[in-house]
């Protein structure tokens, strides 16, 4: 099972304008930097992006926004991005804001072959508008559909050529669910190793979910909020 492609451009070569992409990452943590750069180079547009956040002005999905490549964002939080705000207010960009756990679980549902799930978040709020509700054990739930997308793009710490992935620390976040949910899943990794080098007990994403894998050329890994304490 060799899923290796040469580089990011090769990995994204058949992503077309108008498609729906799921992208891993939380803020700028664990985002597929190299794949995003390749999509920017490719210049496709009218994309729908399912991603918890929309990057910052000059990094992450923000770069795709600069290129006016995104038609719609499906996210839980889109602050920290002036260009995003401009496009939204001007009507160039649509946004569908959904609760973070709902976003994660709708992706998970897709990966588990479940067409829809009943979730608590948003009951009694405007998020529930137009949604079917149902009571179980005295609590009201919303019926939330599994995501449907063309490609999922994730970033892992290490991966083997068979597509098995492991993530580092909180850079795991949405990546495992997005990876499971993709019809075609592209994984970029900091370190690409041979099958057998990763301990089979400690793989976060089994290779069966990954269709293409490559080692990213470089990782900037920008920090949004650098908070530190002083040594005594």
């Amino acid at each position, binding site marked *: 099972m060799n899923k290796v492609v040469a580089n990011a451009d090769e990995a994204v070569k058949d992503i077309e304008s108008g498609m729906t992409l799921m992208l891993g990452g*939380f*803020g*700028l*943590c*664990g985002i597929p930097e190299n794949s995003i750069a390749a999509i920017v180079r490719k210049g496709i547009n009218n994309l729908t992006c399912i991603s*918890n956040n929309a990057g910052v002005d000059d990094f992450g999905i923000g770069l795709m926004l600069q290129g006016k490549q995104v038609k719609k964002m499906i*996210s*839980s*939080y*889109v*602050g920290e991005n002036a260009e995003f*705000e401009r496009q*939204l*207010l001007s009507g160039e960009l649509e946004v569908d*804001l959904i*609760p*973070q*756990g*709902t*976003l*994660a*679980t709708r*992706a*998970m549902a897709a990966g588990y072959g479940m067409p829809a799930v009943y*979730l*608590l*978040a*948003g*009951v*009694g*709020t*405007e*998020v529930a508008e137009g949604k079917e509700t149902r009571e179980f054990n005295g609590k009201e739930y919303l019926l939330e559909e599994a995501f449907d997308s063309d490609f999922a793009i994730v970033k892992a*710490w290490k991966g083997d050529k068979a597509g098995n992935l492991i*993530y*580092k*620390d*909180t*850079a*795991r*976040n*949405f*990546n*495992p*669910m997005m990876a499971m949910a993709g019809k075609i899943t592209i994984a970029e990794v900091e370190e690409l190793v041979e099958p057998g080098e990763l301990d089979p007990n400690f793989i*976060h994403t089994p290779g069966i979910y990954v269709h293409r894998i490559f080692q990213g050329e470089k990782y900037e*890994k*920008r*920090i*949004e*909020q*650098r*908070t*530190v*304490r*002083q*040594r005594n």
Partner: protein
Amino acid sequence: MALSKEQIAQRIAQELQDGFYVNLGIGIPTLVANYIPKGIEVELQSENGLLGMGPFPYEGEEDADLINAGKQTITTLPGSVFFDSATSFGMIRAGKVDLTVLGAMEVADNGDIANWKIPGKMVKGMGGAMDLVAAAKNIIVAMQHTNRSGESKLLSKCTLPLTGVNCITKVVTDLGVFEINENGFLCTEYAPGVTVDEIKEKTAGRLVIADDVKEIQL
């Protein structure tokens, strides 16, 4: 003297019990971690995928792969564990987190909360707030009692779009401590130097003063 933000956090820290798993929101709630009482062990959940959140890193030791839900660089502690976002909200939804502390723009006397959207302003999104308030079993709001115009944030009905309904169990403001029950806000404690009359005046929702109301002890 009304409580400072730090003092609000300090008072909320008194609600912690040994063995609690706690999720602290951004702002005043984050400060609660600085006042965990001695002899009490709690574990902090960060909904981006970490249990056992430690303090900020020493300068030079920041790691871009290790952040909290506020996107701040943090550290781990012995016994920490990382997990994905679905698992994170799964444990919240399943009621495994014992206490959630978060900020609010408005709280109603039936436990409704509004803290994510102001009509006419750019809406940044609810993040994990709606998941937390819908599922956590014990939610304390930390906020100022009034807004910048001096209007009460403790209301009979929220005016802003809701984040969650019937979910807040307690509110700690700069003026006092308020449990929410079927009669509305039950004031159980007042800040040092704050009078019950001032609290009555600045609270728009139904308010009951507890018979044994007492001054907040920090």
